[in-house]
C-alpha cells in the first residue's frame, strides 16, 4: 500500500484519481503506481528540486511587483482520451460561437434584431468598444487565443465557468510544467502516451502570421508586453522566445500614417501583427486612457486603416462579460445551430427582479461575481463571507444589478496534492487554450490545471496564491489514432511515438575519436625515476 497515499480521504467532491468506492480510476493507474513507490522523503526531495528548478530558471509570477515562484505540484491531472475529445469539441464550439458573436455585434448586430440578446446588455458592457465598430479583421479572426475555464461538479460533469477571450494567460506554465514533470516522473511517461504540448508556439505563430493585414507576404510579428513588472511577464518572454519574435514594450513602438514601427538600432522597422498582452484600456492613449504609459498613440487608427493587426482584437471583452456568458448556450444555438456540448454553471442574472430577490435572500449560500472581473478579483463566496461583507455586497448588487451575477457554490473536483509531506485532495479547475488561425480552432491538449492549496478553498487563481499541475491528456489507443484525429496531428511533432521507434537509422562505422599523442611509456617511467630518491613512497 502506498505510504504517501495511505491517508488519502476524498470528500464530497468528485476526485479525479479515486472513484466513490475508493478504487483508482483507469486513467490514473500509471500515476498511482509511480506515487505508491515513493516515500514522503522522496516527495519532499522532488518538491524541493522542482521549486529550485523554477527559481533558477526564473519561472515566476509577479504578485504586486514581487516575483513569486509559481508552485508546481508533483501529481499531474490526468484526462482520459474520450473525455478530452468532448472537452476539445466543446471549447472549439464556444470559440466559434464567440467569434460569430463579436463579428455580429461589431457590425449589424443581427443577434439583437432577432431578439436573442437585449441590446442594452451589449451596450452596457464596459468592454464594448465603440471605437472598433465596423472594423473587419483581415482573416476574420478576433479571438486568436482563448482560454475557457472549466470545472467538474460532484456529479462528474464538466461545465464552463467562464470564457477568456481578451488576454488569457497561463499557457507558458503548461509548457514549463511539462518539461519539469518529464524529469521527475519518467516511468509514468514511459508507460503511456501523453499528448505533447510543445507545439503551442508554432500554432500561435502560424495563426498570427495568417492574421497579417492583406498584401503582407512576410509579416513581422511582435509580442507587446506591459513590461517587466507585469504579473505574466515570464509568459510574455517565453512566448516571444519560443516563437522567435521580438518582445516589445509600448515605448518601442511608434505609429506613422497608419502604420506601426519599432525602434531598432538600424532605425524604424515595420510591424504587421502585434500579439498584445496589454489590456484594451491601455493600448492607445488617444482612444482609451490618456494616462496610459504602456500603449502606443495612434494604434487604434492603424488598426482601423488596416495597417496592423492586433491579436486579440480590441473589444473582445464584451464576449467574456459574465452576463453575456449566461446567454452563450443561446448564442451557440443561434449562430451554429448546434446544441451546447459543455453546459454552463447555473447562473442568476441579477437584473431580473425575481432572480435578484431570490439571490439577495440566500446570499450566504451563493457565489457572487462581478461581470467584468478576472483573476478572482471581487468574488464573494457566501458561505465564507462575514455578515458585514454580505451586507456590503447586498448594497452593491442593489445599486448595480448589471454588474453582478450569482452562482451556486460548486464543489470543484479534487486531485491529490502534496501538502506538508503527504498527499491530500485539493480542488482544481482547468483552463484549456484554443488558437484560431481563421481556418479552424485548435485546442492545446491539456491546458493549465490550477489548484487551490488551502484545504477546502474553492477559488483557484494564480493571482490568489494558487499552484498548478501538469495536465496529461492520454492518447487514444493506437488503433484509433489514425481515424479519429484527422490531419491536425501531422504538425504535432513528437506525438507519434510509435512510429519513431522504427524510423531511427542505425549509425555505423565512425572514425575513432582523436586523442593527443602521448610520450612513450618509457619516457614516463624515466621522468618518474628522476624523483624516486625523494618521493619513493608515493608510488605510481
Amino acid at each position: 500500500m502506498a505510504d504517501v497515499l495511505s491517508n488519502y480521504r476524498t470528500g464530497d467532491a468528485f476526485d479525479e484519481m479515486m472513484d466513490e468506492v475508493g478504487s483508482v480510476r483507469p486513467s490514473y493507474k500509471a500515476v498511482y503506481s509511480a506515487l505508491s513507490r515513493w516515500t514522503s522523503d522522496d516527495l519532499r526531495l522532488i518538491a524541493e528540486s522542482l521549486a529550485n528548478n523554477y527559481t533558477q530558471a526564473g519561472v515566476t509570477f509577479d504578485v504586486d511587483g514581487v516575483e513569486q515562484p509559481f508552485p508546481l505540484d508533483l501529481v499531474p491531472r490526468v484526462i482520459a482520451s474520450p473525455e478530452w475529445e468532448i472537452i476539445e469539441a466543446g471549447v472549439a464550439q464556444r470559440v466559434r460561437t464567440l467569434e460569430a458573436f463579436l463579428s455580429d455585434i461589431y457590425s449589424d448586430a443581427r443577434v439583437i434584431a432577432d431578439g436573442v440578446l437585449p441590446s442594452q446588455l451589449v451596450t452596457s458592457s464596459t468592454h464594448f468598444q465603440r471605437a472598433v465598430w465596423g472594423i473587419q479583421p483581415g482573416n476574420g479572426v478576433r479571438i486568436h487565443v482563448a482560454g475557457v475555464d472549466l470545472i467538474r461538479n460532484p456529479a462528474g460533469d464538466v461545465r464552463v465557468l467562464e470564457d477568456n477571450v481578451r488576454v488569457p494567460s497561463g499557457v507558458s506554465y503548461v509548457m514549463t510544467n511539462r518539461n519539469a514533470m518529464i524529469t521527475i516522473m519518467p516511468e509514468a511517461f514511459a508507460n503511456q502516451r501523453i499528448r505533447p504540448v510543445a507545439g503551442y508556439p508554432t500554432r500561435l505563430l502560424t495563426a498570427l502570421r495568417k492574421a497579417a493585414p492583406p498584401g503582407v507576404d512576410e509579416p513581422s510579428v511582435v509580442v507587446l508586453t506591459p513590461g517587466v513588472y507585469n504579473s505574466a511577464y515570464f509568459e510574455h518572454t517565453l512566448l516571444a522566445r519560443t516563437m522567435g519574435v521580438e518582445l516589445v514594450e509600448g515605448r518601442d513602438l511608434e505609429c506613422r500614417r497608419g502604420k506601426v514601427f519599432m525602434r531598432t538600432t538600424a532605425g524604424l522597422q515595420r510591424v504587421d501583427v502585434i500579439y498584445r498582452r496589454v489590456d484594451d484600456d491601455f493600448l492607445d492613449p488617444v482612444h482609451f486612457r490618456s494616462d496610459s504609459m504602456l500603449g502606443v498613440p495612434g494604434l487604434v487608427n492603424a488598426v482601423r486603416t488596416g495597417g496592423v493587426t492586433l491579436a486579440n482584437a480590441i473589444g473582445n471583452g464584451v464576449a467574456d462579460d459574465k452576463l453575456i456568458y449566461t446567454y452563450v448556450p443561446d448564442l451557440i444555438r443561434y449562430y451554429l445551430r448546434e446544441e451546447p456540448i459543455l453546459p454552463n454553471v447555473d447562473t442568476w442574472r441579477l437584473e431580473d427582479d425575481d432572480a435578484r430577490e431570490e439571490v439577495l435572500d440566500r446570499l450566504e449560500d451563493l457565489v457572487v461575481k462581478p461581470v467584468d472581473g478576472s483573476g478572482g478579483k471581487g468574488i464573494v463566496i457566501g458561505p465564507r463571507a462575514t455578515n458585514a461583507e454580505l451586507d456590503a455586497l447586498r448594497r452593491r448588487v442593489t445599486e448595480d444589478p448589471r454588474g453582478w451575477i450569482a452562482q451556486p457554490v460548486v464543489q470543484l473536483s479534487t486531485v491529490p496534492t502534496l501538502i506538508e509531506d503527504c498527499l491530500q485532495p485539493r480542488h482544481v479547475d482547468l483552463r484549456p487554450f484554443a488558437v484560431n488561425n481563421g481556418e479552424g480552432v485548435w485546442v492545446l491538449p491539456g491546458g493549465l490545471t490550477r489548484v487551490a492549496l488551502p484545504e477546502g478553498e474553492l477559488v483557484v487563481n494564480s493571482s490568489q496564491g494558487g499552484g498548478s499541475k501538469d495536465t496529461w491528456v492520454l492518447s487514444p489507443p493506437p488503433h484509433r489514432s489514425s481515424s479519429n484525429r484527422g490531419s491536425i496531428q501531422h504538425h504535432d511533432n513528437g506525438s507519434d511515438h510509435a512510429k519513431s521507434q522504427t524510423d531511427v537509422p542505425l549509425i555505423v562505422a565512425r572514425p575513432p575519436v582523436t586523442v593527443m599523442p602521448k610520450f612513450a611509456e618509457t619516457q614516463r617511467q624515466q621522468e618518474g625515476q628522476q624523483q624516486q630518491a625523494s618521493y619513493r613512497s608515493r608510488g605510481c
Partner: protein
Amino acid sequence: MLSRIAESMFWIGRYVERAEGTARLLQTHLRLIIEDTSAHEVTACRNLLAVMSVDHVEDPNLTDLLRILGYGAAEPTSIYFAYAEARDNARRAREVIPLDLWECVNATWHQLPTAPFGTSGAHVFLNWARERSAMFAGIARGIMVRDDGWQFMSMGRSLEQVDVTSRMVASASLAHGSTQWPAVLRGCGGHDAFLRTYRGLFTDREAAEFLVMDARFPRSIMHGLISAADSLQRVAQSNALTARHAELALRSLGQLRARLEYADLDDLLANLNHEMSVVQDVMAQVTIAVSTSYFAAEEPRAWTTEGTR
C-alpha cells in the same frame, strides 16, 4: 535589434565586467591593507574609494569599504548592485539571451549575500564574484550567436574593462614608498605572464607598460580599446542607417589609443592618476555617443496629431 534590447545587452556586459573588476580591485587592496600594518586604515580606504570615484563617506574604514564596493545593495559601486542590475537587464532582454546565460545571471542574483560580512568572509565572496563573471563570459562565448546583441554586450564589457583596469593602474600609485605593482599585476591575473614577458627583470615602468599598452594581455587597457572599437565597427556595418552617429565614439577610442601608444612612459608614470582619469573620461564619452546613436528613443512625437489623422 530593438534599441531598448541593445541597451540592455550593453549594460549586462558592463555590469558583469564591473562586478569582476571591482572584485579584483577589492581583493588586491584588502590584502595590501591587511598585510601592511604601517598603513593607516582610513587613509588607505579613502584612497581606494577615491580611485572608484566614491567620495561621500567620511573617514571610511574596512567595513565601509566592504559595504560600498561589496555587499551594499544600495551602493551603486558595489558588486551586489552590479549583479542586481545585470540581472534586471537580462530579465528585460530575456527573449534574446540564451537560456543557460539567463540561468547563470539569475542564479548569481539569487546567491547574492543577504547579510553584511567582515574581511574574513570577503575572500569567499570575492572569489565567488569572479567565478560568476568567468562563468558568464564562458557561457556567452560558448553559445551566443555573434549578432548585434553579442556585439553590444562585448562593447559594454570592453569599455568597462578599460575603465576598471585604469582604476587598477591608478591604484598602484596609492602607497608611498613600497611598490604595489606586483600586487596589482596579481590582481589582474597577469603577474606570471608579465614575469615571462620581461624575464623577471622589471621596474614600475615595465609593469605600467604591460597593463596599459600590451594588447596581448586581455585585461590591458589597449586590449579593451581595440576590442571595443572592433565591436563598434561591426555594429556600424550591420546598422548602416544609424552608423554615422557612431563615428564620434570610434574617433574618441582611436585618439585615446594613439595618446597611450605614443606616450612617454616616464611621463605616463609621473602623471599616472591624471592619465587614468583621461581614460575614464573617454569611456564615459564613448558610452554617451553609443547611447545617443543606438539606444535613445526618437524625439517624442506629438501624439495628438497622430491621433486625429
